């Protein structure tokens, strides 16, 4: 192994400091006794308690989770279908154009996506509320889903689907019984991605939201304009905690699956 030089050590420290210092400060101050965010006055968990009393925040959190759940589910279904067609659909006129267009929202400024959706909803006379936010989130997270799923489909052995067809499965059965179980990890991770994207979206949500559909990011943002309260720190800490637990669980699970697979293969090699 190469020596761990002072240069490497410095870059690593700086890099991680850059990434995590703000979050660490946020977590520390969430346990601050004082109401003043920047003055440390001793350890306390009272802001967590107050957060649980705050109806507005709880409502917003519930709305956010609902929106994230429905939009990510819808986006996963639509995005997987789009990926399937674009990767497997064979040649059809305009295929290249469509493949390019599905990626466009990835690079489109959110402000423009939000504004255009707002104009559309007004144009067709759709009342703004939870439904419009769900639709808007579906729109922009769908393309992330199709990117993730189509990269999995590209590396997927085409002959598996052909074998299913060859054995008498209808194209839908072949997808349901063979393709879907195999690409399931990619579909699940794209669902998680869509869920997180929806959770933290502020710009598009604020364009398309209406009365009774205030999501947590909107709530936090408007609260911060009146001054940062330790309650918000507490809320953010909880969110960081949830994300950390989720990421660690996911990586542990995937590592264990890989390990099991390797062990099974070794066992097979021995019996062969």
């Amino acid at each position, binding site marked *: 192994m190469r020596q761990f030089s002072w240069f490497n050590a410095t870059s690593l420290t700086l890099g991680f400091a850059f990434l995590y210092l703000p979050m660490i400060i946020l977590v520390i101050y969430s346990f601050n006794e004082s109401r003043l965010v920047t003055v440390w006055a001793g350890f306390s968990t009272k802001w967590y308690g107050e957060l649980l009393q705050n109806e507005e925040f709880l409502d917003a959190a519930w709305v956010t989770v609902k929106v994230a759940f429905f939009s990510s589910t819808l986006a996963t279904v639509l995005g997987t279908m789009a990926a399937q067609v674009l990767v497997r659909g064979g040649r059809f006129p305009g295929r290249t154009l469509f493949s390019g267009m599905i990626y466009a929202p990835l690079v489109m400024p959110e402000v423009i996506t939000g504004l255009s959706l707002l104009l559309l909803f007004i144009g067709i006379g759709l009342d703004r509320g939870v439904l419009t936010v769900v639709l808007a989130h579906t729109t922009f997270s769908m393309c992330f889903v199709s990117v993730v799923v189509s990269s999995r489909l590209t590396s997927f*052995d085409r*002959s*598996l689907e*052909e*074998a*299913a*067809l*060859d*054995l*008498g*499965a*209808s*194209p839908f*059965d*072949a997808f349901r*019984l*063979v393709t879907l*179980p*195999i690409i399931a990890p990619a579909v699940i991770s794209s669902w998680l991605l869509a869920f997180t994207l929806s959770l933290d979206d502020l710009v598009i949500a604020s364009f398309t939201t209406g009365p009774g559909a205030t999501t947590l990011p909107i709530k936090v943002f408007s609260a911060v304009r009146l001054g940062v309260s330790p309650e918000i720190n507490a809320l953010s800490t909880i969110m960081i905690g949830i994300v950390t637990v989720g990421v660690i669980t996911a990586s542990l699970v995937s590592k264990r699956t890989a390990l099991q*697979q390797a062990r*099974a*293969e070794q*066992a*097979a*090699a021995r*019996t*062969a």
Partner: protein
Amino acid sequence: MAQSKVKPKQSPSTAAFEPWNDPNEKPLIQFKGVTKRFGDFTAIDNLTLDIFEREFFALLGPSGCGKTTMMRMLAGFETPTEGQILLSGRDIGDVPPNKRAVNMMFQSYALFPHLSVWDNIAFGLRREKRDKDSIASRVDEMLRLTRLEKFANRKPHQISGGQRQRVALARSLAKAPKLLLLDEPLGALDRKLREETQFELMDIQETTGTTFVIVTHDQEEAMTVASRVAVMDEGKMVQVATPQTIYEAPNSVYVASFIGDVNLIRGTANLRNVATAAPAAPESESETKPEPVTKIETDEDPRKPQPNDYGKWLHDRLLAPILGQRVDEPKALPAPTKAELAAAAELQAPVDVPEGGLTIDWAENTPALIAANGDPEFDGNEVVLALRPEKMGIAKTKPDAPNVMRGKVIDIAYLGNISTYHVELKTGTMVKAQVANTRRVSRRNITWEDEVWVSFSATAGVVLTE
């Protein structure tokens, strides 16, 4: 080594199995003027072919010759651009793959990784909406056929390559298809396993009576398993025939050189008549009168013991009184008499070179080669004489054969059971002669740089035009 392993099909049932020669037999599959184009590229070019029931049909050719496209058209993954494909007389051009009584074994095996061996085999049966018991009994039957009972509950990644290959075979046979397509089925197996599996495949094909179409680029594999072999090149069938015919009587230089090893000697063909054949015979006889015969000209048996003076004295004075007079006769069998030698030479002499055929002028100042099996039609044409190396003899002394060529050994490829001698003829042409190593290599009498005679019989080669 490859061509030395040609095994004729020996079982009596396959020996008589020649539906392609029976005009009353109805083909299972008919290609009628089938063309398949991908954009500008023509993968299959106006192909017409009949494949019969219970056949083991091999498609052989280099990569990109269209063999895989043919197979995918049979499975339904590609539709012909022009022409028709008939299965049992019915056009299947527009029938989707899941509605055809055709199953395919994929090159990658395409086993479903998330299903157990048992469920993989049951997959096709379940799609037929059969009841549970009949599915279970059919799957168990397939597991028995492919000797996979022990692995029924394993996932594909938990079994070895050879076992995966058998699962793929069992899965594709489970639905009892009219036609089974095998796309390079043994490509992923190592040589030894592949040879075993070839025989297993043949057994299974005979047991189930299914028609097999196999795609392969391994000519040895095609020759081993197939009842007929189709050699393809650039979307066209070059020759469709039994393995023996393909090997012994290729119809073109392409087939001759694609299957096995071959020596090609180019020359001009002349009609062979008795007048040209007659002088050739006595000349060879006078020249090649075996030398050993002249050695035994004396009547005195060279093997008779001839004691020297000292030995004679010892015998007469000392040994004879004690042991008795020694009989002055050799202990070995008597040497052959002149008459016996002549009779033996008569027997060994090649059976009279058949009449007819062609002679081929291939180099100046050398006698023309005799090809008694040559087509008289080629008279006067530029032809190629295709000779298999194992049909060539090699010797240091001029052998008594209708065709002999002089050359120098350039290289010897020792393959264990056989050796291939690369001989450069006087004209610069390189030919290969293959000899079985019946003696130990240390006792081989031909070595590098030796002047040798390469010989072959009047019917050993095949006369082809380019």
